[in-house]
């Protein structure tokens, strides 16, 4: 079967560029599964990236992120553009399985050829997630989707991860979650470029707006003052304003010559992360042998100390890589 052809990432790349949705979907799987073939394809396609506006959404579980994405698709389509979505849901740490439920809210777009939607589980580590999402977004960018929406799980660490992927981060808040839990949560104010107060049809939304506004007034924003937009994802109210605000953010970044800079910084950060991950992997592998076990035992018996051990591990890793490079 042609779709199973190995080692020919150029064919994958060609098919992706030709708009073959099945190939696109398959390469995303390769990337998600961290198969070398996926990254080879991405190497070929890299020059094509850099055109898309990448928009991240984060916020509390059930806040209406998926519903909002559904309406954003509608708005973007009505403005005549294609759009891709990456929707991330948590993987169960116990079984490794996941129910990826975001798509339900966007399923009406399934047969619109100008929309591509992909669901992903967090699978394992959060660092790993960022890597898969990052690569997938690059692929979608190369496949010339002008807009890419990324919905992340709104819990814990990952809302910060979204910064590593998106040009514009939309932080979704909702009324009724109790006092400023969502708003003042560390880090959330810093990462938001646009704040959407969703479920504005419910009581208390104005209070959230005021709270956000006053928090934002405290921070210093030289180039871009993050706006607060109210939305009702169930009816689409406010979504046009939201998209407009998101577009304005990109324009301001461009005009201030910040977009390219930020993207490069992200690329660098992502690269460093991948390197770190590889090195960590190498070292772990390298030291899961007899010699390694001996070292841990020595540490336990206080025959050595962690700092000496670190030095040894580092030097020995460096030695191996030097040898590798000479090969």
């Amino acid at each position, binding site marked *: *079967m042609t*779709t*199973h052809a190995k080692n020919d990432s150029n064919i994958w790349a060609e098919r992706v560029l030709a708009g073959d*949705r*099945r190939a696109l*979907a*398959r390469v*995303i*799987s390769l990337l*998600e*599964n*961290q198969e070398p073939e996926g990254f080879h394809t991405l190497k070929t396609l890299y020059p094509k990236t850099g055109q898309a506006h990448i928009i991240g959404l984060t916020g509390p579980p059930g806040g209406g992120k998926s519903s909002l994405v559904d309406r954003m698709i509608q708005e973007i389509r009505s403005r005549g553009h294609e759009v891709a979505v990456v929707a991330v849901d948590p*993987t*169960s740490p116990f*079984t*490794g*399985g*996941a*129910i*990826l*439920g975001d*798509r*339900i809210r966007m*399923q*009406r777009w*399934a*047969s619109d050829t100008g929309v*591509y*939607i*992909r*669901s992903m*589980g967090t*699978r394992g580590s959060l660092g790993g997630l960022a890597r898969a999402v990052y690569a997938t977004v690059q692929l979608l960018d190369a496949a010339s989707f002008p807009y890419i929406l990324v919905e992340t799980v709104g819990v814990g660490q990952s809302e910060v991860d979204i910064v590593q992927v998106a040009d514009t981060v939309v932080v979704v808040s909702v009324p009724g979650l109790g006092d400023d839990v969502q708003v003042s949560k560390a880090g959330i104010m810093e990462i938001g470029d646009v704040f959407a107060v969703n479920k504005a049809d419910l009581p208390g939304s104005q209070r959230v707006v005021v709270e956000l506004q006053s928090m934002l007034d405290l921070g210093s924003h030289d180039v871009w003052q993050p706006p607060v937009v109210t939305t009702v994802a169930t009816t689409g109210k406010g979504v046009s304003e939201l998209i407009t605000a998101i577009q304005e953010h990109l324009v301001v970044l461009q005009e201030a010559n910040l977009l390219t800079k930020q993207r490069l910084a992200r690329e660098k950060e992502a690269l460093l992360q991948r390197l770190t991950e590889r090195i960590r992997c190498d070292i772990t592998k390298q030291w899961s042998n007899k010699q390694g076990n001996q070292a841990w035992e020595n540490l336990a018996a206080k025959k050595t100390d962690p700092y000496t051990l670190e030095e040894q591990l580092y030097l020995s890793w460096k030695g191996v890589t030097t040898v590798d490079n000479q090969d």
Partner: protein
Amino acid sequence: MERPIRVLIAKPGLDGHDRGAKVLARAMRDAGMEVIYTGLRQTPEQIVEAAVQEDVDTIGLSCLSGAHNHLFPEVTRLLKEKDATDILVVGGGIIPEEDIPKLKEAGISEIFTPGTTTATAIEYIKENVKR
């Protein structure tokens, strides 16, 4: 890295009885699969498009209204059209014995009738996914 099997669970047609589909979706998650649940009232086109975009290994169709003879083969026909016959298709619901041969001929690999355990369905999928 051991990759999870990806499944799309869909209810084609207008029937709203989703107890079985939801129980199966949960059981599949607990068996380590990634389950994309598309909800009620799905057209065969929507199901096939979603399956292709999500690059799933298998599609599980559930229908209790008796419209399976029309809806299930339409799904496999569209998969053929998309050159995506490597996606395993299984079906479940109130499906009379006598309809099963025709459905299998149309490319539905297996039909699970009432009383089938989730364990049986999951086992079948694990053994029969094509990649």
